[in-house]
């Protein structure tokens, strides 16, 4: 659990921005891992499995009718992070979902565009576009913050 707990938590924060949902998905992912019969070929394969399963679980939750109708826009998890980190994280989390996922996987998890494309089931060129536009948006947001300060 130690090896992947932070990765799963970061992806949950990236998608959900809600403490209760984050906790649910975090536990769900590790339960799936325990019950899974997947034979991992390497540590890298295992890490990719965690990333893919977490992203899918988050998307499933966001799509769920029940959640859309009942969950308030709680920002507890994000705020807890914001206080510690500040503008950069806030700017990444403010990006549209596709951009922030690509930015996170590329800059933090060090995946290349083709690897991200495989993980997310997208076209490689689409990932390049997402990275380029995400960077531009991020730069503009951070410059805007700097101007305002």
């Amino acid at each position, binding site marked *: 659990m*130690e090896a992947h707990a932070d990765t799963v938590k970061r992806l949950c924060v990236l998608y959900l921005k809600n403490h209760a949902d984050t906790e649910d998905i975090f536990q769900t992912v590790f339960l799936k891992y325990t019950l899974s019969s997947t034979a991992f070929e390497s540590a890298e394969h295992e890490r990719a499995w965690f990333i893919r399963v977490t992203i899918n679980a988050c998307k499933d939750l966001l799509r769920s009718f029940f959640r859309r109708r009942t969950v308030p826009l709680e920002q507890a998890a994000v705020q807890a992070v914001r206080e510690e980190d500040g503008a950069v*994280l806030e700017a990444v989390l403010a990006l549209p979902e596709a951009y922030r996922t690509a930015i996170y996987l590329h800059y933090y998890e060090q995946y290349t565009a083709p690897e991200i494309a495989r993980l997310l089931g997208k076209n490689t060129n689409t990932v390049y576009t997402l990275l380029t536009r995400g960077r531009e948006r991020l730069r503009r947001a951070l410059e805007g913050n700097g101007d305002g300060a």
Partner: protein
Amino acid sequence: MEHEIVRAFQTVRAEESLKADTLERVLEAAARRRRRRRLGALAAACCCLALVVLGAVYRTPTSVISIDVNPSLELTVNRFDRVIAVSGYQEDGEALAASLRLLHLSYAQAVDRVVESPAVAACLERGEWLSISVVELDADQGAEILRYISACTAGTENASCRAVDQASVACAHDLGLSYGKYQTYVEIQAAGGSLTAQEAGEMTMGQLRALLAELEGGPAAGNGQGAGGGQSADSQGSASGQGSIPQTGQNGGHHGQDHHGG
């Protein structure tokens, strides 16, 4: 920008409490899964055992119905009233057994099929004698089968049925005879006849019964010689206990009791 993003995300970490709660749930789930697997394995083992026991019970014979005209055929019946084995004796018996699909039918259906088969029907048309013997391994079932066969043969003049004690016909198969034919063969020997088992096997039931009647000094039974009429040396016991299983040897030295048709 890359370093700033990495630094920003490094501040996001799974809390120890979250990890501890998750670990607890994961361990619980794993324990539940192990329990379910153990229960599943146990249930599967029980099912297998039940199947084995049921299979063994199904394959255990509880009665044998020996149908003799010439051809001779034996139907082995289990406690579920199903035919689990069919044996033909001599060439014509084997041919008859091979021509009929009797396995796993109820004994009633199987007996009907045999009696209505072209080979047996032709024999009856010629006035041959149809003898059906029930070897009782399970007394209740034997009585039930005998009751059914008695009812079936009630309308046939040249037919008889009887219960036969297994002990008295135990060596029938060693001599290559069906239980029913062996019973008559033993009766002929007891009456002073000098017939070999091979000769008995080649004779029709009508011929054997005629020989027995001759040795006992009674009237000839319905047979291949055209005697017919449904009367035979065994007829004394025919009126009593239709469907009941009489004891061996009660019938004038015979090892069984006949219930005649007609």
